[in-house]
């Protein structure tokens, strides 16, 4: 499916991605799913031959040859997302992403995706809190043209007022689809807004409804000019390439674009939380839902790795603690999980969530989740369980690398939010995590004063009424 917007939100694993967005949603999931590397990867891994280069205009280039098929993935990552927005204009980054398909002087408003598909390629884009990324996947013979097209739309976008207005309607439909009519996504927005009061992670990537409605074409254009420049961008190519040759092509396509002024720094920092915050959403829903968000540090802190391990102990696989205890043994929940991603530009959250089975209550699930947290704080995790999590990390790493696109995403995302070489640190650091580390971070972060609880409390409605009539030609 060709849907040119995938909202990368912080809690992807609980937003139920719609099947029709399969390809893209999957990609998003992969991004947020964290990643891991085996020890061996540090010296002979698939990322050992990454070619890194910076053009004079500041454009960052990362190239990885993988010649299993005559195919490439080209990805263009801009360091701009909802983190770079302000209240009243939320969603402008994502809106900008949509406008990037509206054409330049050289390529008309409908040409971009069509040209790519015509060659057997697929293109799409996605926006997150920290980044906006565009990609083309397909035959390697198209690389030169696609580079040229990406370079062109970096600076030469032309969007008419009419196209701008129409595309805004599309984005409003997207918001209705993703959030307004989805009770769990709606809850997720509410609890993020409660968890962050000083930092832009408080608002959703897609933006608040009225903000999207009120953003003007001029505001979008100003933003586009400010952030879409080579010195705020990383170009990644993975696939059947000759890196030196590809580098020349990139230089040719992007080299003449002048560097722009540095985009404004985001200086906001969420202050420490003193005391639990709770939000309740009353909406039509089949079952209640609970999520708990704890403020946690990001990749810059040594605690990030124990937190990664902690999330896996809680929720990776059917033998994980939350599934085994709450779903399997106690038969309390239909769904449970824990989610932590260390790859954010600023500190974000560690999430634990659960959906009660019919006949069970949110209070029961909350108590059971808290029992699991308590256990992590009072008892050290056993050696075998810790080893299991490390084994899962190594195997999971190789499995994800089966996708070329995913390799590109790892490079692009890490370079955009931190530095791509974190790939090389990751597994050794995961391997170093001890049971004492896990206990320490559980005690330090998973505490009530640092917690934001969101509860979906379904309101009673009449059963949906269904009716049928024969339209007999009157419908249309």
């Amino acid at each position, binding site marked *: 499916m060709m849907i040119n917007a995938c909202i990368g939100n912080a809690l992807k694993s609980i937003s139920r991605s719609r*099947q029709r967005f399969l390809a893209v949603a999957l990609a998003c999931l992969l991004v947020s799913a964290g990643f891991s590397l085996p020890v061996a990867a540090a010296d002979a891994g698939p990322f050992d031959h990454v070619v890194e280069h910076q053009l004079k205009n500041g454009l960052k280039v990362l190239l990885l040859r993988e010649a299993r098929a005559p*195919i490439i993935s080209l990805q263009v990552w801009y360091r701009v997302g909802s983190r770079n927005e302000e209240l009243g204009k939320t969603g402008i980054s994502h809106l900008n992403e949509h406008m990037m398909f509206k054409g330049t002087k050289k390529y008309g408003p409908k040409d971009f995706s069509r040209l790519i598909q*015509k060659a057997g390629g*697929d293109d799409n884009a996605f926006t997150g809190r920290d980044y906006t990324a565009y990609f083309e996947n397909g035959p390697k013979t198209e690389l030169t043209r696609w580079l040229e097209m990406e370079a062109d739309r970096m600076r030469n976008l032309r969007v008419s007022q009419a196209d701008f207005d129409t595309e*805004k309607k599309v984005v409003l439909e997207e918001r209705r*689809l993703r959030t*307004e009519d*989805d009770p769990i996504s709606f809850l997720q927005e509410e609890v993020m807004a409660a968890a962050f009061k000083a930092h832009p992670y408080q608002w959703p990537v897609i933006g608040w409804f009225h903000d999207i409605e009120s953003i003007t074409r001029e505001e979008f254009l100003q933003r586009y000019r400010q952030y879409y420049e080579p010195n705020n961008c990383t170009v990644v190519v993975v696939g059947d390439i000759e890196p030196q040759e590809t580098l020349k092509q990139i230089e040719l396509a992007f080299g003449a674009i002048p560097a722009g002024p540095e985009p404004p720094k985001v200086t906001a920092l969420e202050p420490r939380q003193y005391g639990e915050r709770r939000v309740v959403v009353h909406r039509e829903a089949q079952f209640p839902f609970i999520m708990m968000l704890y403020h946690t540090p990001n990749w810059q802190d040594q605690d990030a790795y124990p937190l990664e391990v902690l999330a896996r102990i809680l929720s990776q696989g059917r033998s994980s603690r939350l599934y085994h205890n709450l779903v399997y043994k106690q038969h309390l929940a239909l769904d449970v999980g824990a989610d932590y991603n260390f790859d954010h530009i600023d500190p974000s959250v560690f999430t634990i969530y659960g959906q009660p089975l019919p006949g069970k209550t949110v209070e029961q699930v909350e108590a059971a989740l808290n029992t699991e947290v308590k256990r992590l704080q009072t008892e050290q995790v056993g050696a075998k369980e810790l080893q299991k999590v490390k084994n899962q990390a190594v195997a999971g790493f190789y499995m994800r690398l089966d996708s070329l696109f995913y390799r590109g995403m790892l490079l692009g995302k890490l370079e955009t939010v931190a530095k791509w070489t974190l790939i090389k640190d990751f597994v050794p650091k995961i391997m170093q995590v001890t049971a004492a580390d896990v206990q320490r971070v559980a005690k330090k972060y998973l505490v009530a004063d640092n917690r934001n609880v969101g509860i979906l409390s379904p309101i009673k409605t009449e059963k949906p009424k269904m009716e*049928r009539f024969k339209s007999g030609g009157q419908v249309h």
Partner: protein
Amino acid sequence: MDKFIKSLSWGLIAALVWTGAAMAAPPSQVLGVREKLPNGLVWLFSEQSGLPLVTLKLLVKAGTLQDPPGKEGLANLAAVLLLSGTKKRSATQIAQELDFLGAKLSAAGGDDFAEVSLTILKKDLAAGLDLLQDILLHPAFAPPEVRRKVAEIRASLKSDEDEPMVVAARAFNKDLFGAFPYGHPIRGTQEGLAAITPKDLQGFHSRYWRPNNAILCVAGDLTQDEARKWVTQIFGSWPEGKIPAVKLPPIPALKDRQVVVIDKDITQANIIWGNLGIARSNPDFYALQVMNYILGGGGFASRLMDNIRVNRGLAYSVSSQFDPGLEAGIYAVTLETKNRSSAEAVDQVLAEIRRIQKQPVTAAELSDAKSYLIGSFPRKMDSLSRRAWLMGYVEFYGLGLDYPWRYPDLIQKLTPGDIQRVAEKYLHPDQSLLVVVGKKSAMPPPFGAGPRPGAEEKKDGQKKTHP
């Protein structure tokens, strides 16, 4: 939604079929090698040594089509319960062993076949295959595990109704297929699941889960000899059986336009329009695939997306898809639009359908569709998991392992006349089904109006249709 989920992933696959380009294809131009064990198990193998991994996929012709009436969901349950205990391993032991290896093992139902997949590091293959053999040959179907899983599936079926498009898809499938098994979700119905006993599961497993009713695909870091050794050792002792034929009820014909409106307090109307499509064996598959790409399967290259999203801003997502199975599946257009645009959007869908029936597609549209379908095919086989999947698909539907290399010709030879012919033959605006889930009071007529005189009031959507 299961039916739709399947149709969409088929759509992706359908959109993936490829060209004679120089893939990592063996010189013989086949996806892999095909062999057969004495017990009738067909197995396919493709060596892929880029990563230290092995993937196995087992397709068993034990899908929704094999669901007995009144026990809807049995086929899926028989698959997913494989992970819930064997005669010597408990569900917990299975989970612990797998997780300790970091392996991925899944078992799932489907419309035409059930599927078991294992992906594992090569170094752990022996342990993984021992486990795989155990769950396939000796599932316990212990009563507490059955009760637990049934309760879980019934709750998840209900929870999914928070997605309005699921509500729409369920109503659409049910009305389109009637008592035919494609009409109920792969996971079954509340009533069907409630009626299933452990004995039913044992019986189903011993009838259908047989090597001569299955296809095994192996891809990964193994030589052919290694693969043969493993396949023989693990699957050689699986006893074959006589597979009973299934009697399927007829799919009722739509006699006129039927409209179902389901009232729900949401901001968008979730719309499905469609009619019965074709089976995978229908030779018109290729023409229909190209027609569908141009109409609504080709993303921004398609007419529906261009008209309804790009020009009118009425929807974020609008597409058409068809779902060719062993039996005829759906042909459907889906979209979501704010309640008050529902009638306009449906008008445009029907206008595009009439246009593609009445006027030949342009030469440019046809050539772009062909070059996409042909040129994107290599990406359907560019990873371990995709290659294993594609091998299973071509074997199951009888397309042959050289299918990827025959595909370009099948597409290339199509003419505008072929496209128009299949549009006329398989799209039936006057005998079609339209399902709209949205807020009635916010929708304009006809969806917002009350039922017309003489209209049939539809009863509870959860009501049993398959006696």
